[in-house]
């Protein structure tokens, strides 16, 4: 798993690539929370390079989403590949996040 970070105005864009699986979930969650805790704007997670996601990866996004909601900030997702989108749809996560 790789994460590239860019500043986009007041928001942070995180370009994630690779596998959001159980072994990678904790480092992924820690990376997300580090951005949540050290920035003040919105966060956009670009999943174009993600080829696999399991419920552990979803959980990491939910933990970050909850922290952002508590802080009254916005976390959104973009560019999900079809199989990744299917996992979000089945688990109900498609309606929890703004996805573009």
């Amino acid at each position: 798993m790789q994460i590239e970070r860019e500043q986009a105005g007041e928001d942070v864009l995180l370009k994630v690539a690779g596998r959001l699986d159980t072994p990678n979930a904790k480092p992924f969650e820690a990376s997300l929370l580090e951005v949540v805790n050290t920035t003040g704007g919105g966060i956009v997670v670009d999943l174009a390079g993600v080829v696999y996601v399991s419920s552990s990866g979803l959980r990491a996004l939910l933990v970050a989403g909850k922290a952002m909601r508590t802080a009254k900030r916005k976390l959104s997702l973009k560019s999900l590949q079809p199989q990744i989108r299917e996992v979000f749809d089945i688990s109900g996560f498609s309606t929890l996040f703004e996805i573009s």
Partner: protein
Amino acid sequence: MSTSLTPQAPIRASLTIDATVDAIADATEWLGTLAEAEDWPMALKFGLELSVEEALANVVSYAFEGVDAAPMIRLDLLELDGDRIGVRIVDNGIPFDPTNVAEPEVPESVEDAKIGGHGVQLMRHFLESLAYQRLGNENHLILVTKPKTT
């Protein structure tokens, strides 16, 4: 779910892994190698890999709490009739039947959403059948994919 499985199905290949989160990657790599060698359809491979990972995540996280015996986790690739792929996951942890896990409620907001509980939901979606047996001191979970040709 249907349980048209054959527990006595011949074993085509087996893998034993450690009871750690990182060892789940050994199992998914093993499946990936088999998928490549046998040219499994991409969607079938994705769904089976995800289902095996979800099952193993439960096993390594919860199965061995308070268990004295040395943890054992084995995956068997099963020879099935028809056009399906079967994987049996055997562990000697505490009894746990994932087929009894209730579907999580569909959350309406991030605030309401519960952390966890989605693994079995994903397995039910991607597999044709998911069946559980407790045999002696072992959990046997059999995952069967949908047909390769659909």
